[in-house]
């Protein structure tokens, strides 16, 4: 059985950065072609396997930002630099990079939803994916749960960025409130010209995309990314099916015109 799509391959962990109490970013050695928004099936033999989005990548490396909230992710957290992580992929449709290039782009991401858009933002601020303008709104529950602090500082220098936490907190002088409130305040002269990406928890995506519709952004210009349980990533296991859509092969990034019709 050559080329078995279920068999993962080992990749060496080269760096682990703690992002918050439960989240960490793991860099591994890997030279693979991929697109921002795609995901890998990550596994540890003896423990199990789960889909994790690419949180950044370069020519010879790849990052995953993982929330240690389950048995597998908890075990991955115990790995050290030099050990192997097992992966297969990349899978799925990523962000529509061709449509986004040279656009006026707005990216809204909440919590761990910042991870899948991070490679996209990195490419934009580095100039490898040129856009006309970038507005970025990132939201987190509290100041302790903010991810990618260093990246965010760099992004603030390069684009129109809002970093907000849900509620005011002692020692926090930045923006507060849900991302929806900040979307509402955007001043968009020609809403037809914008491309919009929204990634976060299901409830956040529902209300955030509704705000953009109210601002007059055409539904065809809005992109979302879904997260679902998956056992295969290949369109076989059935866990991620919603209506006739398989998130693993038809998504995870989808246009809102399609995504809005999906009822779990």
């Amino acid at each position, binding site marked *: *059985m050559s080329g*078995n*799509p*279920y*068999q*993962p391959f*080992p990749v060496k962990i080269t760096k682990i950065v703690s992002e918050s109490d439960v989240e960490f970013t793991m860099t591994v050695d890997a030279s693979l072609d991929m697109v921002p928004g795609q995901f890998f099936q990550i*596994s*540890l*033999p*003896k*423990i*199990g*396997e*789960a889909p994790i989005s690419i949180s950044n990548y370069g020519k010879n490396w790849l990052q995953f930002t993982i*929330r240690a*909230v*389950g*048995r*597998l*992710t908890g075990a991955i957290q115990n790995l050290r630099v030099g050990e192997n992580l097992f992966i297969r992929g990349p899978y799925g449709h990523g962000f529509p990079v061709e449509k986004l290039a040279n656009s006026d782009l707005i990216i809204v991401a909440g919590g761990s939803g910042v991870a899948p858009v991070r490679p996209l933002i990195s490419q934009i601020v580095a100039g490898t994916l040129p856009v006309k303008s970038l507005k970025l709104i990132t939201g987190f529950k509290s100041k302790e749960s903010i991810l990618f602090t260093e990246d965010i500082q760099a992004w603030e220098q390069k684009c129109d960025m809002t970093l907000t936490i849900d509620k005011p907190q002692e020692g926090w002088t930045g923006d507060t409130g849900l991302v929806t409130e900040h979307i509402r305040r955007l001043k968009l002269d020609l809403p037809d010209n914008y491309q919009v990406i929204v990634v976060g*928890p*299901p409830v956040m995506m529902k209300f955030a995309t509704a705000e953009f519709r109210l601002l007059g952004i055409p539904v065809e210009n809005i992109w979302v990314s879904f*997260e*679902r*349980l998956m*056992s*295969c990533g*290949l*369109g*076989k*296991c*059935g*866990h991620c*099916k919603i*209506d*006739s859509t*398989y998130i*693993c*092969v038809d998504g995870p990034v989808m246009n809102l015109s399609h995504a809005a*019709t999906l*009822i*779990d």
Partner: protein
Amino acid sequence: MSAYDYSRKEFAAVFAELQKTYQIYGPKRFAGRGRFSDTDLIRYAPLASLDELELAEKSSLSPKSLVFPADETIFHFNDHEFSQPQLKENGEIIVLLRPCDINGIARLDKMFLENGDQADPYYQRRRQRLHFFMIECRESFENCFCVSMKSNTTDNYEVALRFAGDRVAAQVKDHRYAGLFGQKGRAGSFSPEFVSGNDKQVELPTVETMPAEMFNHKMWEEYDSRCIACGRCNTSCVTCSCFSTVDLFYADSRQCGERRRVWDGCHLDGFSDMAGGHSFRKNKGERMRFKTFHKIYDFRKRFGFDMCVGCGRCDDVCPEYISFSSCINKLSRTLKGGSDK
């Protein structure tokens, strides 16, 4: 194409001759192994002789385990290496099955061989060993609604067989069997007939897009209390193809273990649970809606025909007496603005 007639004894000799080259699977009765005391279990198994072929009753499990076992090791691993398990036996298999199940496996083919543009190698290596010998099915069993599902007929077989008392008739479509079948029988004119009517009939929804209000319609609430999430409808279904993967390691050699895939089902708890607490379809009624739409609505949107083949096994095995055919009819009535009662 040729046709032959046999006495049962003559055909038993053909059967025995085929067994020299092929393993033959068919519905087999296991006395006393049924769900209730003093009942039998009928499931697909290797047949030692023609006498073991069970024709009087429907098998409670479908032949899908021949291509998609309930539990299959996808690889073994140790610290550094993965290895693919070989199939224990790699010979070719003749499977005796009815038109609904042949059509059921054609639906599994769509999922495992085509969906996602990449063939599933574990399914494929089992599937390519199978040769379908169709058991002519002229009379419906209890709960069957294959005619409504248009899965009562098929031409996807190499040989068709009619078992009528002491007589057996065969239609041989694949010339590789012509010599063997011709040698032991007399030339005949058999051509299989198919069930043309079932006691149970369903009216399928004709909508191209399911109205959003049907997803949360109160018609599904009945199943909140009635369904107990046992998943028997999923396991008995010839077309249910969902699975989960699980890892295990060996007690005596903890660096070694295997990854398996095991049947999973949309009615079972945990089917959509994600680490961190997100979950979908917590209510049993929502799971019933999800399964129903998949079987008779959204599979068709993706593949051009319905998933359900109307074999009625889900109704046969449900411990809560949920009738899938009634559910389909109720949905169609509701869609047309009628009563959901």
